C-alpha cells in the first residue's frame, strides 16, 4: 500500500533538481550571497598570512551557514506556496521519505555553493582550500546542517515570519557543526598533525549522525498541524 521509500526519495530529489535546473532560484541566490559575503570579509579583514589562516575557516563556515539559510527557506517556501507539501502528504508515502528527499536536494544545492567557494577563497585569501580533507569536512558539515535546516525550515515555513524565524531557530542548533567543522578545517589548512584535526572531524560526523536520527524521528510530528 505504501510507496517504497527509495522510490519516493528519488522522485522528490529528481523533481527538486529538475525544477532548480530550470528556475535557478536556490543555487544562484546562495552563490551570489556567498560571493558577496566572501568579498566583504576579504576587504574587511585586511590580514597577514597568519591571521588569514586563523580567519579563513570561520569565514568559510559562517558564509556557508548563512547562505544555506536562504536556500532552505526558499526550498520549503516553494513547497508551501502552491500547496505542494499538502499534495505530497496526500500520497501514501512515509514522512521520512519526504524528509530525506528534501534533505538530499538541500544538501546538493549547498554543496555546489560550497565547492564554488573553495577556488574563490583560494584566490582571495591566498590559501590552498582545494584539499581533499577540506572537501570531506565540507561534505560532512553541509550534510549535518542541511539535516537540521530541512526540519526547521519545514516548521518555520508554516509561520508568517518564516524568513526571520529560521535563522533564530537554526543558528543556536548548528553551533556544534560550526565549532567542529571550523576547527577541523583550520587544522587541515594550517598543516597541523592529523591527530589534531581528525578529532573534530570525527566529532562532526558523530553530531551529524545524531542530528539526522533525531530529525528522522521528529519530522512526522513537525508535519502534523
Amino acid at each position: 500500500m505504501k510507496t517504497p521509500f527509495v522510490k519516493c526519495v528519488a522522485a522528490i530529489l529528481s523533481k527538486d533538481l529538475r525544477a532548480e535546473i530550470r528556475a535557478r532560484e536556490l543555487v544562484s541566490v546562495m552563490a551570489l550571497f556567498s560571493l558577496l559575503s566572501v568579498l566583504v570579509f576579504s576587504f574587511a579583514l585586511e590580514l597577514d598570512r597568519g591571521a588569514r589562516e586563523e580567519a579563513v575557516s570561520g569565514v568559510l563556515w559562517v558564509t556557508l551557514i548563512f547562505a544555506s539559510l536562504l536556500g532552505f527557506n526558499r526550498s520549503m517556501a516553494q513547497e508551501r506556496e502552491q500547496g505542494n507539501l499538502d499534495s505530497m502528504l496526500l500520497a501514501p508515502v512515509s514522512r521520512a521519505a519526504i524528509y530525506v528527499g528534501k534533505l538530499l536536494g538541500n544538501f546538493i544545492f549547498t554543496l555546489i555553493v560550497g565547492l564554488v567557494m573553495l577556488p574563490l577563497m583560494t584566490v582571495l585569501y591566498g590559501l590552498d582550500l582545494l584539499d581533499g580533507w577540506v572537501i570531506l569536512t565540507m561534505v560532512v558539515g553541509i550534510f549535518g546542517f542541511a539535516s537540521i535546516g530541512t526540519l526547521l525550515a519545514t516548521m518555520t515555513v508554516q509561520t508568517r515570519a518564516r524568513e526571520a524565524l529560521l535563522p533564530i531557530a537554526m543558528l543556536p542548533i548548528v553551533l556544534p557543526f560550526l565549532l567542529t567543522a571550523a576547527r577541523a578545517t583550520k587544522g587541515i589548512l594550517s598543516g597541523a598533525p592529523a591527530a589534531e584535526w581528525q578529532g573534530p572531524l570525527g566529532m562532526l560526523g558523530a553530531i551529524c549522525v545524531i542530528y539526522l536520527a533525531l530529525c528522522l524521528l521528529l519530522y512526522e510530528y513537525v508535519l502534523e498541524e
Partner: protein
Amino acid sequence: MNDARPIIEAENLSKVYGSLPVLRSLSFTVWRGEFVALLGANGSGKTTLLRLLSGLSKPTTGAIRIGGWEMPREAMAVRAQIGLVAHQPLLYENLTARENLDFYGKLYGIERDERERRIKELLIAAGLRKRRDSLVRSFSRGMKQRLSIARATLHQPDVLLLDEPYSGLDQAAAERLDGMLAATIAEGRTIIMSTHQLERIPPTAGRALALSRGRISFDDAIGSRNMSEIYRFASA
C-alpha cells in the same frame, strides 16, 4: 449510480482550532458512486471538512472511516483511495504538465508503463495534450484546474474531493470541468465537491449536504422541488 455500500462514514466529527469550533458533531454517510455537493457560506467549515476527509487534518473528536479503513490510524491505506483538488492547484510551476503528473504518479507507486498510459489518457481528457511539455507557470487558471483534476485522479482514487473547483473559471473552462466530473462519476467514483456558487452544482450531483456554522443544516437528494430549500440552507 451509487451501489448502496458506504465509502465514507463520519461519526460525531468535530474540529476546534484553538478555542474556535469549526465543525460540530457532524455525522453522515456517503455511498459509493455518489456525487455530493457540499454547500455553505464562506466560513461554514467546508474546507475543514474536506481536509479532515483527505487526512490532511485530524478531527478533534469523532471518527472517520473511508472504504472501511479508519482515519487517522490507517491513513496510509486511505491515502491511496483519495484524490484532492484544493483551492491551490498543488502543482509545481517550474515543471511541465507531464512532469507534474509523472512526479505524482511516482509518489503513488504507479509502475512506469501504467503511469505513462494514464498520463497520456488524462492529458487528452483534460485537453492539455498539446501543452504537455509546457511549464505549468505558463498555464491559465482553467488549465491549471484541469491539470489539478488530472493529478488528483491519476491514481484512480475511489473518492475525489474538490474544494471550490469552479472558482476563477470562465464559462468554457467550467463546462469542460463539468465534462471531466461527469466522466469521473461515470467511472463509478465518489465525488464530494464544495461550492458556495449554487448555480455551479453540476447536473450529475445527486445529493446536497449543506453546512452552517459547522453543523449540517441540510442533507437530502437534489431535486427541482427542493432547490429553493437548498438555497435557503446553503446561504444560512
